[in-house]
């Protein structure tokens, strides 16, 4: 079984804020980590390998520094790592990212591809399904449980708004996974040692025979026009006085509104 796990290196989003007065970003030393959902994707890949044999390849598209994310994945137990890196990939939106990944995965070959549900920076959850389309294979998004997997098919639970669907798909297939799926393992000491020395395969746009007009900024239909702090509502009324007075004022205000709660 050829298992490919797509991972993205992300900043720790919780720490990025915008100063509402100046409109500038405030960042307190953001570390670059593996996208948290992708840890669950790696874990799922490792478990499938343990069951059916084969190998787990982790792949990322990013700057040369993204190598660290791959080494972290190797230390968890992944067998091989591929770094797609080229200046020409920079500025890719989800369309160009998925296209680029598909070119590389076509080269590597895969029976199952596992992505995280979404990346915590871009937050779009689009790369997985777009990638499946480029590879012309089925996909199941929001997988929270793998009921069974064989060489030819997989049965999973897909999270839906009002519960879940049990979905069967033929292989090759792509799944995107949510955190409920599993508990990612921690790297072992041996894994860490091996990961340090492991060779990481680097591929450029030329290596994957990507069409120049379809990668990076040029290949991206969407553009970020501007970013800003979340807006806050304008009119507010502070109700002053003793607690009794405050509560009385609130009741009066609510009574005065069109919609009757009282």
């Amino acid at each position, binding site marked *: 079984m050829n298992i490919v796990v797509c991972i993205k290196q992300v900043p720790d989003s919780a720490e990025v804020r915008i100063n509402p007065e100046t409109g500038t970003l405030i960042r307190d030393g953001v570390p670059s980590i593996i996208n948290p959902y992708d840890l669950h994707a790696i874990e799922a890949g490792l478990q499938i390998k343990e069951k059916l044999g084969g190998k787990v390849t982790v792949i990322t598209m990013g700057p040369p520094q993204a190598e660290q994310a791959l080494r972290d994945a190797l230390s968890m137990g992944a067998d091989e790592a591929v770094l797609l890196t080229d200046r020409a990939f920079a500025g890719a939106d989800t369309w160009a990212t998925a296209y680029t990944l598909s070119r590389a995965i076509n080269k590597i070959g895969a029976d199952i591809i596992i992505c995280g549900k979404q990346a915590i920076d*871009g937050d779009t959850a689009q790369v997985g399904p777009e990638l499946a*389309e480029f590879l012309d294979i089925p996909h199941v998004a*929001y997988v929270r449980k793998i009921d069974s997997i064989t060489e030819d098919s997989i*049965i999973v639970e897909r999270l839906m708004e009002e519960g879940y669907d049990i979905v069967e798909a033929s292989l090759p297939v792509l799944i995107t996974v949510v955190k409920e799926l599993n508990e990612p393992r921690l790297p072992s000491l041996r894994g860490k040692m091996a990961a340090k020395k492991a060779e990481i395969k680097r591929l450029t746009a030329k290596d994957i025979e990507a069409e120049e007009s379809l990668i990076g900024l040029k290949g991206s239909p*969407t553009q970020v026009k501007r970013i800003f702090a*979340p807006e806050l*509502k304008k009119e*507010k009324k502070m109700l002053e006085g003793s607690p009794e007075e405050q509560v009385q004022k609130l009741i009066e205000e609510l009574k005065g509104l069109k*919609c009757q709660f009282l």
Partner: protein
Amino acid sequence: MRIVVRSEICSGCETCVSSCPYTAIVMKEGKAFITEYCQLCRACLSVCPEGAIIEVMEEGEGVTVAEPSAYRGVWVFAEQRNGKVASVAFELLGAGRRLADTLGVELSAVLFGSSEESARELIKYGADRVYLAQEPLLERFNDEPYARLLAFLINTHKPEIVLAGATPIGRSFFPRVAAILRAGLTADCTAFDIEPGTGNLLQTRPAFGGNIMATIITPNRRPQMATVRPRVMKRLEPDPSRKGDIIYVKPDNLSSRTKVIDTVKEVSELSVNLQEAEVIVSGGRGLGDAKGFKLLEELAALLGGVVGASRAAVDAGWISYSHQIGQTGKTVCPKLYIACGISGAVQHLVGMQSSDIIVAINKNPEAPIFNVANYGIVGDVYEIVPLLIKKIKELKGL
């Protein structure tokens, strides 16, 4: 496009370094330098006091294909579950109607695997036209046939804008449609506008876990596709006298490599209530313990509402996750939202700030929740809420 630092102007003040969400700016020999981590998000452009950071266009950029003028009309994908149109579809029609009117074009809805009656409902809520496909394979949601058929219809009729709900269904199959069409897709939008002059759709969405907002454009490709966060857009009042056309679509060669074996409902009474409730009384870490929620339940019951919570309260184990409101919980839009002991972190705000009336009770006058509140009370929850309960009871003669 690239973002570069004009090193002759850079004063080395390092202001830009911390402005970059991707850690893509480093100092080299006393000057700022933009590394390959740059995602072209433009955050640094405005922070440089010297104006030393600029965008440069590269040759051949911005000239990509698709004569945008060949594309006309606004479409919404109306998702259904068990044949019943999902509420997000009516919200999309509300948003779509406004865009169509601004552009002076028609609004169409696409409905798969449902009835003519449902199609008529979409017309009442603002559609000029409904494309209805009634194949059995489309009754249950399946990514591939949904994506193929929608892409085929878009290719045939060439709308300029296509919207779907940012639901598990929309977020799963819409990207496939975008991939097929080589179209730009913006995720999980919370606001739209039309850019004067270009007619481009300005698509605003939260990113970085809700910490920042981004406006995305798709300048050179059509259609402009977006998924829209549920419960943010306002639906129109239904108008039974509205006229519209239903166009029956007869697809052939639909197939799917995935099969839904079973659909299991798993919503607690409560979470449904939370999204449909007219009144929500929410508690946060400020309650101090689980008992606080008993008090809130009493208040909620008096107002005919239900109880919600911040993540901090859920994480503390005072109340179950199904009550959580915000980025990683539910998005709600009640008529009245009362926040008790909640500070108002952006991740909470994104889940409730479109509520009609927001009341905040917090003992810290500086708490950010007051910035979104219509009425603010600075005080102790355990003093204010019991008084409120008492007064309401008096009022109701209880």
